[in-house]
């Protein structure tokens, strides 16, 4: 069975996370579930990978974190949520362009 090359996908974890955060603010496990759902279960992001991406992107100013109650009634623990920033949107667009170019170039060498 073919597996995703972790080397290649590493550069696009940020893109996937930003794609999800562009729709609405979200939190760790929810994001990993979305990635699994959108990729039809073909890609499972590891918790450590996800958390590294959060800290890295927060440092770079692409996302912001805030805490919110776990459920609307307000009982229960607080949870860390993330939302995309303007520079995050810019970065996302740049990554999309980068991928189109990469795909276009690599595609020319692929025989199926």
């Amino acid at each position, binding site marked *: 069975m073919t597996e995703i090359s972790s080397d290649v996908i590493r550069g696009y974890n940020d893109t996937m996370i930003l794609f999800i955060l562009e729709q609405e603010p979200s939190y*760790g496990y929810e994001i990993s579930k979305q990635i699994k759902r959108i990729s039809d279960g073909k890609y499972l992001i590891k918790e450590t990978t996800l958390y590294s991406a959060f800290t890295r992107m927060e440092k770079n100013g692409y996302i912001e974190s805030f805490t919110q109650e776990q459920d609307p009634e307000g009982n229960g623990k607080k949870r860390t949520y993330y939302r995309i920033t303007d520079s995050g949107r810019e970065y996302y667009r740049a990554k999309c362009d980068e991928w189109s170019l990469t795909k276009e170039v690599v595609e020319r060498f692929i025989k199926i």
Partner: protein
Amino acid sequence: METIKNYLEAMFAGLPDTAEVRKAKAELLQMMEDKYNELRAEGQSENTAVGTVISEFGNLDELADDLGLKNEVQEFNDAESANPRRQISRDEAASFIENRIRKSLFRAVGVMLCIISVACPIITSQGDTQIVLAGPSLMFVCIALGVGFIVYSGFVDSEWKFIGKQLCFIDMNTASYVKERRKSFEGVRAICLTLGIVLCIVCWVPCLLFSASARVTIGPALMFLLVGIGVFLIVYANSASKGFDMLLRVNDTKTISGGYGEPAPSEMKYVSKTAETIVLCYWPVVTCLYLIVSFLSFRWDLTWIIWPIAAVSYRAVVINCRSDD
């Protein structure tokens, strides 16, 4: 869920205790908990859910990089390979505890023999010349035996001498096992300490009871016997229970796993070197004084009064010699 917490705990055990590391640990636990809860809600068994969560967790190396902990992790790994921390497993902890209890028993018996030895010349001092002479010899035999026991107790745990010299660590499992053992020993310890203290407090009663009898020396002899047994119980209980705290304290408190035991209580501080000498020599000097006065005056029915007086003045001496900071 306990297994997941333990797993995370073990993964983070060597990392420094900083705000970033704490946050990372809390966030990762939250994600794992969410996943675990959902898998359980989907009807998976506890074991399957735990297995899935752990297998999909990833590893900390990439995380350390992004947390700016690359140097710390590197340092930790270097230190680890240069001077490996020795893990003390659960089985080792169990055998350490057995060993410690045996050691404490030998040591306590040794101390007891040394104290009781004094009773020999006292009890024989009231007889014929031959019997009188037998007393000191018996005393030295007792002391020799006692010292033998104490020296031997030092060898009993020689294979565990590395604790305290080498960096060691225990995991949470072992720690909770040791805590359990400590809890079950707590009852024995309480009984030993109470009985020991009571024996030391009432030790002068025989002196009072036998002061009118023809054989006045029975009183003081019994007194040393009672003190000997009392001290035996106190030494045994304290020394054995110290073993549990020793194990719980082996972890490096600077890492995020921290120590499992309370920090070691600070030793008594003295105002000066002279004060320390006075406090440390107090009881041996009192014992010698008591024996000299008693043998010279041969008023065993009266001389016991030295002990209560000495005990009261000991408090005064300690209060004056101890520094508060």
